[in-house]
């Protein structure tokens, strides 16, 4: 499987496109194309939020997750929903710890100060979850779908320099 951030209006290298997508520079349209060998296997996910995703997101989708997905179990739709969930995160959100679970889920987690935030995205949207812990105590676990802005809002509040929860 290959994933490329792509421009819809000018040919550029993948690196240039990914960088432009991350920084918001140039005329690159904010899209991430997820391609998989075989017919009907190309999907373009338009990131819905205005602005720019964190700089680490394109590489995570293009290289890191596919590399960890040794058994090629993650489908394009999971990558797209992961991208959509992370696209609205504040730019200064650090790169998460990430993994591909044996249950064919993409996992990402952040330990920021006393807070632990984790998301899980699977081929089945029903398993997409957002989990939050503060000071070692579980605050809650909610479906991620429809709560992407909640994730972004939580992150904005807990990042260094923000007002504490």
């Amino acid at each position, binding site marked *: 499987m290959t994933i490329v951030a792509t421009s819809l209006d000018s040919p550029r290298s993948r690196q240039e496109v990914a960088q432009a997508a991350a920084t918001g520079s140039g005329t690159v349209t904010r899209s991430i194309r997820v391609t998989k060998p075989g017919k009907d296997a190309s999907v373009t996910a338009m990131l819905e939020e205005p602005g720019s995703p964190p700089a680490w997101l394109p590489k995570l989708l293009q290289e890191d997750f596919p590399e960890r997905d040794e058994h090629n179990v993650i489908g394009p739709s999971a990558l797209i929903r992961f991208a959509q969930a992370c696209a609205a995160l504040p730019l200064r959100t650090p790169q998460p710890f990430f993994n591909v679970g044996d*249950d064919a*889920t993409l996992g990402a987690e952040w330990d920021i100060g006393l807070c632990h935030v984790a998301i899980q995205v699977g081929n089945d949207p029903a398993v997409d979850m957002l989990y939050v812990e503060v000071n070692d105590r579980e605050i809650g676990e909610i479906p991620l779908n429809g709560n992407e802005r909640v994730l972004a809002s939580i992150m904005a509040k807990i990042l260094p320099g923000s007002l504490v929860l």
Partner: protein
Amino acid sequence: MPEGGDLGKIPLDCVVYRAVKLINLKPDGTPQSGCFSDLADADGSKDYMSVYFADEMAANGVSVKDLAAHWGERYAIVEFTVADLVTEGEAVWRDPDGKFPGHGACKRADGLKRTVGQKRRIAKLARRSDA
């Protein structure tokens, strides 16, 4: 097998080992939540999380070092107890695989997939046993 698994046949204080990828450990050595997922196999026959029971390993003369060697250098071994898993709502059962003594399995007793919160709670219980 859920519905309690082999509960009653495996001592609650029995140590349970789990092999996790080194790359999925955080810099402080703690495992990410995703290390504790059921296997998504094609036919569902192994739709559980593989573990190893220390009592059966000992009875067969193998140690956690042997288990680490069996999994190789890309993996680390973490441990908890049967009681830890049962407290988290898991059914545990012996499941010999013919590859290494003590192989077993666990899964949510209700048969559902673990949520990220449940994985996280297991991750917090896990301790490195081969470091």
